């Protein structure tokens, strides 16, 4: 690990100023960044600790939604009664991720900004266009059973690992961003994560020197909300395929997939689970290792819809 400076910011403005230095990074829960630093994948020169900025409350919005502070811990967000009641898909997605210990540390903003778990990204001996732009992608032509099938490019086939983000995408959340000199803007979840194209190292809409201050949920949309995560063991693994579903009266209203793409994969389609899956998977480019994900995505959507029907029947 390279030596780095460490500063604890007392306000958003101070944090933004400290982060304006070259090679500075924010640290909140540190559940992803510290691992990456130990492995030499991230090597910030300056670390700016933002844990004392507040930004850790969940407040109602004038529109009837909720504004989730950037530093609200995943465990707290999942346990919030309003989230559990009105945004069940988000609570369910959160508790399906990581472990209790990690969820206690990990923050809302940090969860959105976590890096891919592509094993070739994690091995600094391998070429990787995310780690070293232009070096190539070792995952293409390599072992890729858990890598992406949608939204990928010839430069990168990594997926985004977050469960939370898939739920936020299906709920049409927006990301509130603060920039230098008090500039603020919002970015819909739809546009927050970028597709790799030829620049897989550019992963989000966040610009240099900006920080996430909140994530806002629109007013509750109701319906029956399901998060179904499939993986190779019962716990503590990233999704092979996941489905965030809002259903009403046994019909799919909104759906987004995780585990398939570099971002939560929302599909706006109507019809049966099969028809919606067809629409979602159109244009998929599986490798010889991960073609099963297409079948699994269809099956998981069907399973999620069956769960929803059961829940509705039980009400």
């Amino acid at each position, binding site marked *: 690990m390279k030596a780095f400076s460490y500063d604890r910011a007392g306000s958003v403005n101070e944090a933004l100023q400290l982060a304006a230095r070259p090679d500075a990074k924010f640290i909140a829960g540190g559940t992803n960044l510290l691992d990456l630093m130990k492995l030499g994948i991230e090597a910030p020169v300056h670390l700016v600790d933002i844990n004392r900025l507040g930004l850790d409350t969940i407040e109602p919005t004038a529109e009837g939604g909720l504004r989730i502070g950037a530093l609200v811990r995943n465990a707290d967000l999942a346990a919030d009664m309003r989230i559990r009641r009105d945004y069940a898909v988000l609570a369910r997605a959160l508790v399906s991720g990581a472990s209790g210990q990690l969820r206690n540390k990990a923050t809302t903003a940090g969860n959105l900004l976590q890096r891919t778990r592509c094993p070739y990204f994690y091995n600094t*001996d391998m070429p990787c266009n995310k780690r070293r732009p232009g070096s190539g992608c070792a995952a293409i032509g390599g072992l890729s*059973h858990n890598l992406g099938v949608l939204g990928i490019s010839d430069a990168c086939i990594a997926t985004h690992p977050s469960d939370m983000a898939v739920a936020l995408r299906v709920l049409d959340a927006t990301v509130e961003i603060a920039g230098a000199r008090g500039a603020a803007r919002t970015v819909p979840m739809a546009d927050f994560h970028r597709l790799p194209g030829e620049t897989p190292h550019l992963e989000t809409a966040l610009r240099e020197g900006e920080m996430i201050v909140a994530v806002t949920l629109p007013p509750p949309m109701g319906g029956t909300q399901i998060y179904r995560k499939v993986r190779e063991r019962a716990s503590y693994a990233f999704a092979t395929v996941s489905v965030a579903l809002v259903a009403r009266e046994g019909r799919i209203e909104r759906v987004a997939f995780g585990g398939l793409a570099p971002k939560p994969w929302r599909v706006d389609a109507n019809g049966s689970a099969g028809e919606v899956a067809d629409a979602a998977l159109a244009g998929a480019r599986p490798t010889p290792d991960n073609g099963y994900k297409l079948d699994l995505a269809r099956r998981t959507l*069907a399973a999620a819809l069956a769960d929803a029907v059961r829940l509705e029947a039980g009400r």
Partner: protein
Amino acid sequence: MIGDGINRTEGPRKVAGQVPYSAERRDAGDPLHGFVRGAAIGSGRITEIDTTAAEAAPGVRLVLTHRNAPPQGDLADLGGLHDAKPELVDDRIVRYGQPVALVVADSFEQARAAAMLIEVSYDREPADFDFFAHAGGGEVQDVSAVGDFEQAFAEAPVSIDATYTTPYHFGHPMEPNAAIADWRDGHLTVYLTAQMLNQLLDGLALTLMLDKADITIDSAYVGGGFGSKIGLHCEAVLASLATRILERPVKLAMTRRQMFSLVGHRAASQSRIRLGATADGRLTALGHDAHVQTTIRDDWREPVANVARALYAAPNRLTRRSHVELDVGAPEPVRGPGELPGLMVFESAVDELAEKLGMDPVELRLRNDTQIDPEKNRPLNGRRLADCLREGAERFGWDDRPIVPASRRDGDWLIGYGVASSIRSHWQMATDVRVRIDPAGLVTVQSDMTDLGTGTYTIMAQVAASALNVPVEQVQVELGRTDHPKGWGSGGSWGSGNMSVATDRACSAVREKVFAAAGKGFNDIFAEVRRHFPNGVEAIGHTIGANDDPNYKAYSQFTYGASFAEVGVDAYTGEVRLRRMLGVFSFGRVLNAKTARSQLLGGMIWGVSAALHEGGDVDPRYGHWVNGDLAEYLIPTHADIPAIDAIVLDDFDEHANHMGVKGIGELGAGGTGGSVANAVYNATGVRVRDFPITLGRLLPGLIARG
């Protein structure tokens, strides 16, 4: 006393954090910290290595590469686990992650940071990393043939011929491999987390070109082994080289990721299993052709096909092995070498045969049971496989099994039951134990044996306390030093047998000395010792090696078990979840009911892991371990293991040794994986012959729902 499920004697100190593991030892004071830089390629040569920046980095005391490493003993041709293992010898790279430099610094972080600053250029050479591209072939070795297998198989009324694969496995004990080496006054002490001390001492002395008398290995507490601490690895060698140069204690602890390439692995395997039977389920032909990975330099060949040699009767038999030499590093023993993968695939094949015969898989196994070793024609002492199967079937409710695959549902779950047999060689190795009684009222048991966390300290105390008729609290067991009486450590499931025999004999010898001095019988041995031996009294007890033991000529020594599993498979997604599992085992006498049960349960969990989770993937282009960390190399989590149970048919195997004891360490894993795989088939009607059974392998056969 013997057999009681008492708590581990060192347990309270362990949970209170008072027991230091090797990397935490401070006997030699605060150590310097080493970090290994591993090769970034799988095969080739180092063309340039620039250590300038690393040497100038803060806190750095030493940078060793092949250019300045001290001379070491020569790498043996086809070396074993305990031959010389020189490091940083030349510019040649033979496996990914091979050490190319050692950095020693004041702190771990400084050493790691400096190691990353070393610039290494390589010349890649063509290499072969892909086991699964080699379908069999190679020289056939370790052939055991009885009768005319080929003809019997061709003529068998019912037969199956199926090919299975198992992946690379890693030991990955809780405590990573680590050493602190301390060179002072011409003597080297290595605090090493290890399984077999005397044998490691051989390898280390050969490597360092030191006299064995000039080295002490201390491995008082070990946090698990699973084979990963049997062989000599770079942490011991490089820390020793560095302490001799720096004359300061040097610690070298592997990171979890490094353990994938700095410690060996279980070889991947391919097995073709052919079974022929009469219509009423009597095996007439039993064949297992195994093919395994090794390297050009190593002599370890995973004995995958050997498990079938004494498992079932059949007049015509052929078991053999071939291998392919790849550039992926050395295979080594990993939990149940041979048995874990071998039984998983062989017992899957037996299940396939049972289905073809339309027979209950338990009944098929019972019908082919034997009390005589079918290849060596001598009794299988203590063989209670049939009892294990019957007892297990009764307790598990096997009669209620879904007879037709994919016929039982519980909501969205497809329910399946599976069974498999287990068999494990029982070995015996030459072992000495010293027992001493001090007048103050203390019994000391001393050996170079190690306790991997499984309860060796405790069972040795129980054996000595029983033999001397004293309370367990008055027995102090001292293990894990090479200056203690020597044995063969922990491995091969032989520890409890070797140790209990030698400890009991040492106690008998001490009692005889006390009896001779007292001239009469006595109740309180401490009183007699105080009276007649003011300086204490001691004796050595000995266990002879299997090769010298008539029991091993007259009998074929094994332990036995049967595993029963129930799984649910999600009918939508193909997710497999274990619902319950029972193991029934027979291994002679139980020394401690609690530690034995824990060890068996742990083994059973490894069986689940092998069936459903574990597998190391090598990139066929680069030769590195792709899933080289515990986020990607999956083992079961708590949520994967429901309530499972292990039952022991307590016994006394008089033909094993005078204590009636046989080993249990690796028996729990045994065929457990096979029972899980068979349950998955029973649930789904889909037979996956490549392990582990992943979603990608199971789904194509699973009819889609919804």
